[in-house]
């Protein structure tokens, strides 16, 4: 669709009108702005509630009605050992899954974006497939695999599953970031006498690092948040933080959940903030 064509459509089809008076225009802008305020309030309402209720001293087992302000929950966030253990399990799973997925996915992205080779189309299709597969299907297929192989469910199977669903995200994120990168820079480095390893370390790696970091953060967030797939492959012995919360939801809701959730929020928002600040600084330096 080209621009003149669109403009022509106007002349041909549209009745000619006087332009809108400015005050009416401003009114429309205000209306949109008001809508944006409402949508943001709606988007953030649950998060605000989570943080506020982390300072609540609930009357019963459910931290759902405001009772009294307290700092006790923050003073002792690890008071409930079952939740703390589940939280630590989640952190461990996320750390291992994120590390392995970032390395494996990063290598795959390097291969698909840097080289021309036979079977590249197929590789790209296999990379996208897990993203289009629903969690429930991925969880049940892994469950049948482990069942058919008589594998006992636990920490290892959870990590295997988490690496799997992070892998494609990492590969595609890094791929998107290095698209358009001029690989002949590497040749230049080598022509100037740099060894392949040194070339990778000083030229290639710094260029793909932002993509790798973004992908790593994303996979950590995906891993620590997953309930559906994990519930299929965790078995009885391993409980992650989301599983613990989901299983307990009908019987209790201690305020420690809010404290731990607020901590995750602080860390991820902090990391996002650092990322944004670095980008701003780089852009400022570039211009």
């Amino acid at each position, binding site marked *: *669709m080209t*621009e003149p064509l*669109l*403009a022509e459509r*106007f*002349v041909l*089809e549209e009745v*000619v*009108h006087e332009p*809108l008076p400015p005050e009416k225009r401003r009114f*429309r*802008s205000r209306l*949109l*702005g008001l*809508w*944006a305020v409402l*949508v943001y309030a*709606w*988007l953030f*309402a*649950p*998060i605000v*509630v989570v943080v506020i209720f982390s300072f609540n001293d609930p009357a019963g087992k459910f931290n*759902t*009605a405001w009772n009294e302000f307290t700092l006790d929950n923050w003073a002792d966030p690890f008071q409930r050992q079952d939740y703390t253990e589940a939280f630590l399990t989640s952190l461990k799973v996320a750390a291992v899954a994120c590390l392995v997925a970032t390395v*494996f996915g990063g*290598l795959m992205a390097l*291969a*698909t974006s840097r*080289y*021309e*080779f036979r079977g590249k189309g197929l*590789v790209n299709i*296999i990379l996208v497939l*897990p993203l289009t*597969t*629903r969690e*429930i299907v*991925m969880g*049940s*297929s892994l469950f*049948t*695999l482990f*069942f058919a192989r008589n594998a006992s469910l636990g920490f290892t199977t959870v990590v*295997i599953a988490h690496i*799997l669903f992070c*892998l*494609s995200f990492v590969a595609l994120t890094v791929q998107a970031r290095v698209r358009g*990168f001029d*690989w002949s820079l590497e040749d230049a480095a080598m022509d100037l006498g740099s060894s392949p390893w040194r070339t990778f370390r000083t030229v290639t790696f710094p260029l793909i690092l932002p993509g790798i970091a973004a992908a790593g953060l994303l996979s950590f*967030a995906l891993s620590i*948040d997953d309930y*559906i797939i994990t519930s*299929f492959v965790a078995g009885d012995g391993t409980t992650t933080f989301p599983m613990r*919360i989901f299983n307990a939801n009908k019987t209790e809701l201690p305020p420690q*959940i809010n404290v731990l*959730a607020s901590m*995750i929020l602080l860390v*991820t*928002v902090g990391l996002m903030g650092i990322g944004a600040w670095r980008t701003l600084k780089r852009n400022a330096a570039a211009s």
Partner: protein
Amino acid sequence: MASETSLRQGRKAPYALLSPGMLWLILFFLVPMWTLLRIALSEKPNAFLPDYELTWRWANFSDAVDRFQPELVRSFAYAGIATLLCIAIGYPLAYFLAFKAGRWRSLLLGLIMVPFFTSFLIRTIAWQTILGQEGPALGLLRALSLVSVTDAIGLTRDGAFLNTPQAVVGGLTYNFVPFMILPIYVSLEKIDARLMDAAQDLYSTPAAAFRKIVLPLSLPGVFAGTLLTFIPAAGDYINAELLGNVKTGMIGSQIAKLFLKESNYPEAAALSFIFMAIITAGVLIYAKLLGTEELAA
């Protein structure tokens, strides 16, 4: 600066780089899909033994459809309504971000992603708090004596938000709306502002300019956003479990229950495949209707 010629012809290196990741995808994605299909066509010859026998029992599929038709219909209906709500809520916001947000744009865009980085589960539980019997939403309605009004228009049921289909659809809308806003924003942002100036110069009303320029050019974003919200919403069951009642169960919770509680693996596997098939068929029909041009964009 990018050129196809800077890509290397690889002999061994690309395969070496790919091998660990590909091995993982083959072992834990492609092979399990195959096992899932085998189980879906199997039978349990002896109720007391854990073994399944591949008997090509296609009836597993029809049994599953017969038994879980309400859940299947409900999943797609809820996801469909939630997707429409996401468009209604997300489109004006994306428009605001693309054209009116000015220097606040990147900050506001980043803020959309913040809820995404807090736990899905905890956000949904927070809605339990907000919408609960003692929560602020009902408190506000009671203070304004509007409960009978919201009951009448179907927003609440018997003076309660929770444990209703409305709450489930609301939860789905909330959880997936960022996936609608961002693609629409991307397609709106690409629109050349000069087109709108041109429309204005030619005395078009803003409404006509929107209808003839902005809307058609943003359709690829709406298309992508619809896929990104509808598919995960149809597969989700956390919202249905936490905000709904026994009559709002979606297909995901049935699959999970069959696998993890009833240990009826063949029917559960068959149900997974039916769900996947409906989604795939739906996406293909949708792509056909909207044309491959939009899909490519």
